[in-house]
């Protein structure tokens, strides 16, 4: 091991212990654990946070430690939850009185066809063996088939048909066909003009956006102009996404820093 690595590790260990001691004496009592253990838990959480952040400087053993821990723990977490909620909750009450009693869930009634999913599940696990891999495709096929069968009608309904009728918007708002068009012209955000502008933008935006993604006709002439307008609308859309994504990422950082400053360092209350 290089000397610098040793020194850094030693410093981290010392800081960890100091923090542990201080936290042990300052954490509020919550009844589940003794302060000694609670102090450790908070310090450990802070250590993991900083270990991941150290990747910003460069890839290093602390980051690798944290990342590897994450991979292992989260896989086991999902397995535990899946076991208790779905296998114990949905499968056992349908296939075995004994298993249901053992795990303390109310037994429903026998449904013979519910032996199929566990069989397919075990077939899926065959993928772990080098030779039985091919049979795991049966289970995979079930998953693929279910997803395809579930998605087809629902995407057709919600993302295609419903979207079309949602675009049927009156392009003339608050006008009864006679008299002056604008009762009170203004650029107020809640005014008539902006309402009309909104509907026209939506209508033309969707139309031209679709034209941009239309591949059966060359983008020339009117079609070309429309597709150019379409790409501008798409760019505004991406700009909005961009802004929101930045906002989201920052929120996560704020959340993490709040943990460090509040729960760990106790600088703010």
């Amino acid at each position, binding site marked *: 091991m290089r000397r610098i690595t040793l020194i850094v590790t030693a410093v981290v260990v010392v800081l960890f212990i100091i923090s542990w001691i201080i936290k042990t004496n300052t954490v509020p009592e919550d009844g589940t654990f003794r302060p000694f253990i609670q102090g450790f838990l908070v310090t450990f959480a802070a250590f993991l946070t900083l270990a991941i952040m150290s990747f910003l400087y460069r890839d290093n053993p602390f980051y690798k430690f944290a990342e590897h821990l994450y991979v292992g723990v989260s896989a086991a977490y999902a397995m535990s*939850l899946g076991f208790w909620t779905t296998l114990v*909750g949905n499968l056992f009450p349908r296939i075995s009185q004994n298993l249901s009693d053992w795990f303390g869930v*109310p037994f429903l009634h026998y449904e013979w066809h519910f032996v199929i999913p566990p069989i397919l599940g075990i077939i899926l696990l065959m993928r772990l063996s080098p030779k039985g891999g091919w049979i795991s495709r049966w289970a995979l096929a079930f998953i693929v088939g279910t997803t395809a069968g579930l998605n087809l009608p629902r*995407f057709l309904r919600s993302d295609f048909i419903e979207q079309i009728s949602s675009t049927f918007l009156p392009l003339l708002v608050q006008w009864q066909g006679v008299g002056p068009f604008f009762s009170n012209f203004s650029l107020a955000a809640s005014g008539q003009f902006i309402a009309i502008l909104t509907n026209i933008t939506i209508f033309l935006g969707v139309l031209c956006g679709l034209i941009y993604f239309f591949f059966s006709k060359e983008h020339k002439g009117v079609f070309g102009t429309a597709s150019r307008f379409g790409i501008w609308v798409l760019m505004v859309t991406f700009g909005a996404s961009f802004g*929101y994504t930045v906002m989201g990422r920052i*929120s996560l950082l704020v*959340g*993490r*820093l709040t943990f460090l*400053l509040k729960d760990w360092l106790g600088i703010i209350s």
Partner: protein
Amino acid sequence: MTNIGVYISLLLIFGGLLAILIYSLKGRDVDRRIIFLFVLFSVASAIIFHIEFEESATPIVKKVFEFVENLPPESKILISFDFDPAMKPEVHPMANAFVRHALVKGHKLYLMGLWPQGQALMTETIEYVLKPEFPNAVYGEDYVMLGYKAGNEGVLNVIITDFRKMYSTDAHGTSLDSIPLFDDVKSAKDMDLIFPVGGGKPGPKEWILFVGDPGNVPIAPGLAAVVAPLIYPYYPRQAIGLLGGVKGAAEYESELKKNYKEFENVETPALQMMGPQTMAHIVIMAFIVIGNIGFFRARRRKWQEGN
């Protein structure tokens, strides 16, 4: 004291930005790690010095709030925790605000989740918000924790016709038949409102596709900022309104505070985050401007050299 701190850190931040501007005008490159430190400092100082702002709800958030206001008492509201800790700072405040609003209006709450991590966060909500703030709420009569189920869209496709087929018990192993809240509930269609809170897959989009549209149930999604713009096409017909990111959460929190005296002193994490959030937005916008100034200068120089 705090004020001085605010001024000093503002001064440092703007001074730093100026320095970076000058640096890049000279055509030199600023190391990315300096930028990292800069972001860290500006966000941390805003957290420490508690820069807080007022919020007012935008129409799209207000629609959700008013929908809950206008529901008859004892309506059935389902909140789905479809997120993990990585999204928690943005969307957990929404889930908590929904819980507060629903209970203070006397509605019945059903909590479930499509993400395994959601169940642990559900527990946090119940322990830190529901139980301390609503000590009179009775489990099984006012709220119930159904917990997580594996299977993404598959779960939704079953609960749209039958809850009991998917959840034979709640998260504690109690049979649904012995829970009063389920006396007159058969499927998700019996809900008066569904709040899917999340931002990945499965999440609010799946709720609209698999429950909202086929079952004609009002959906009010609480979304992580990253996916919020993607859900706008469903508004207003397929989603009655939506909350996008920490800003949406902050608006909802402020609306709750404004309308209900009892929430004046509760924690409002989303509102508190808006200060640091604003600071970071300013810094990032400044970076884009500075970067582009450098870019256009360099391009012009190249041009001039070319001629």
